[in-house]
């Protein structure tokens, strides 16, 4: 295992980690849609604001999961370095 190979794998892992974090786009769009609809709902029915807020936060926290999977992959590539033999 030469030094070049090690550094090559580390560099590719860093690129892969960067690509994995692109998964954050999806939850961003999804949470934005949820927040937009919640704002519209509060506009229609201001009395139900607390219910709407808690439902929105619950849904957003669940929608966040896919983005966090991307984050986990990036963390694994950067710190656990599974590709190094």
């Amino acid at each position: 295992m030469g030094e070049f190979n090690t550094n090559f794998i580390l560099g590719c892992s860093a690129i892969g980690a960067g690509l994995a974090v692109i998964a954050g786009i999806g939850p961003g769009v999804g949470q934005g849609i949820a927040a937009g609809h919640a704002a519209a709902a509060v506009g229609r029915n201001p009395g139900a604001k607390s219910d709407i807020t808690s439902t929105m936060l619950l849904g957003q926290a669940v929608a966040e999961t896919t983005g966090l999977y991307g984050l986990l992959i990036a963390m694994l590539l950067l710190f656990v370095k599974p590709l190094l033999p």
Partner: protein
Amino acid sequence: MGQGVLLTAGADIDFMIHGVFSYELFGQTLWITTTHICVLIVLLIITGFCIAANRVIKRASDVPGTFQNIVELVVEMLDNMIGGVMGKFSPQFRNYIGTIFIFILVSNISGLFGLRAPTADYGVTLALGLITFTLIHFNKFRYKKAKGVLAELCDPWPFWAPINIIGYIAVPVSLSLRLFANVLSGTVMMALIYGLLAKFAIVWPAALHVYFDLFSGAIQTYVFCMLTMTYIADACTTE
């Protein structure tokens, strides 16, 4: 230069789990890590709170003092939350859900007090997810009997069973990974800020602590308990 890019940028960044001391058991080397110690500290804090609460409630007065008020508030809030989701099944699961709620909440917030949050270790959250998994399937067998479980396994068609089994296994995995990744991301962000921006991190990281530790931790606690309750209530309900 054998280290990752981030770790060479600043030597002070530290959010990993460290081993404290190791011991041998049946030929295996096992480690007592910082996670164990943080869990122990969290448990001691909760136990202290429980002993104080017990003492106050035993001599409860009609006009509650400050501490009795807090205890009653916590119990009432948990009861309302569990009763709202689980309905008639809530009395049996009140203890378990209340316990994991308080444990996860204190664990998540413990990042604020300089501990490494125990829930930022996959070992802790996987254990919580597996308890939920066991409870779901135990109650499924208890309420729906073997026949109902089999009917649910072969829900649309019998050959669909493997996909249903994958769906069952995905429940604890996604539950535990969600909690773990959220708390870990907070831990990593705070470590990066204190490590890379050490010269500028004077007062404003407090605002980030409020978001990453308090807000995110509380929301994820709520989500974990909510989903656990929904799954268990779903497993108990018979048509």
